């Protein structure tokens, strides 16, 4: 539901109601999604409805809350459908992520709903268990080999 996510991909086990935490190979993963492509009915007095200024908003939340808060990364006004994190996430941690589009339609600013997958909790505030999921690699073993 929402903008279709390309990377990290979405995977779900057969019996599970929610999607898997997809392992990414870096602490600064690149996120990709499909562009907003909608057809809208034009107002009666116009030939076509105008959709302008499409930008994207990306958010990443840590799944375990702490005093520092759940939201760990947020970028708005993204003009492309791809974003590489500008600062590193933590090793061995599970995260939620989601994306949405902001756009102007006939002069009014509107948004899409947040991208969700698995069993859709569309009545819940974000972050929720339907957000897209990934996990970062474990900290590499730095012990010297003898």
């Amino acid at each position: 539901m929402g903008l279709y996510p390309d990377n990290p991909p979405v995977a779900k086990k057969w019996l599970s109601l929610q999607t898997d935490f997809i392992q990414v190979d870096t602490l600064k993963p690149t996120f990709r999604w499909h562009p907003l492509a909608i057809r809208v009915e034009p107002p009666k007095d116009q030939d076509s409805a105008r959709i302008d200024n499409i930008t994207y908003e990306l958010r990443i939340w840590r799944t375990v809350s702490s005093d520092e808060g759940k939201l760990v990364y947020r970028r708005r006004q993204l003009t492309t459908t791809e974003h590489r994190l500008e600062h590193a996430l933590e090793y061995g941690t599970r995260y939620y992520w989601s994306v949405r589009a902001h756009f102007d339609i006939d002069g009014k600013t509107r948004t899409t709903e947040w991208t969700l997958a698995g069993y859709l909790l569309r009545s819940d505030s974000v972050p929720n268990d339907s957000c897209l999921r990934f996990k970062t690699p474990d900290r590499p073993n730095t012990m010297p080999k003898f």
Partner: protein
Amino acid sequence: MRAIKSPDIRPDRSVCRNGVQLSDARRNADTICQNCFKQAPLVLTAWLVAVLVMAGCAQTPAIYTMQPEALEAIRSEISTIGVYISPEPPETEVMLPAKGVWGGFKRGIVVGASLPIMIGFASPIPGGTFLGILVSPFGAIIGGIYGIFTAVPAEEVEHSEVILSIAAEKIRESKLRDAFIRNLIDMGNTTTELTFVDWQESRASSHSYNNTHRSYPPQASIDALLRIQVKKVGLLGSYSIDPPTDTFVQIHVELIRLKDDTILLDEDFTCASGEERPYQDWADQGGTDVIHEFRDCVPELSEKIIDDFFMVYPINWNDDFHN
């Protein structure tokens, strides 16, 4: 659209809303992953219950399925919105662990007896439910024994109850309602082109000759009321001996056109912690994590309300234009 008499004194409607049931079911389902090795039979029950409940309770906010033109027509009618949160205390719902040996025994019997019936009901075998009923007494005995050995000591549960009741009192004293109103007004004024004001402040300014609330428009200029009621709060989890639970807040929101007291939009929204813990763990460190979770819900629910009522453009994501 439905007409009402008065936005302030209108009795609460107890329509069948699925938000809480849905969340219960989700939490039941999520328990599967965390306890599958410890409580396999209980997990299977929870999964079956979850699937059955979800099949009947799937809910999508009406806003997401409305025709965009209809939703935009409603939005175009309003420019100044009064924000009001009902002071009525919410209902509390807490899934406690089974208390002590006796509590564990009783709960184990219930779960153990219901498990075969649920499996039989869900299985494609003809007469599966009947077979489940036959096996049910054995399940009850096994469940009871399991409950005796896995129940949490009663003193430990009662100690946690005391700590969490103190935490609940701290939440009440922290005036979250006022913070919620302020947060909603700030978020609405920042992210939309509409004007959001405190309904009660504007009413006070309209009725006072020595106006100390000059920043608020008179109530007559407010064309819609955003009325919020916090319906339910608590800790939810699956029905098992020592269920992992997460915090939740469920609210009901109505947008009311004041000129004729018509409800333009209404929805139920939920904020959940998304992190399941045993009941006793929530009581650690004086229940501070519970307090944090409820505080975190204020901005999350504010954003959900502003987004869904005033910003989200309903899109049919299954159409040909969506890959």
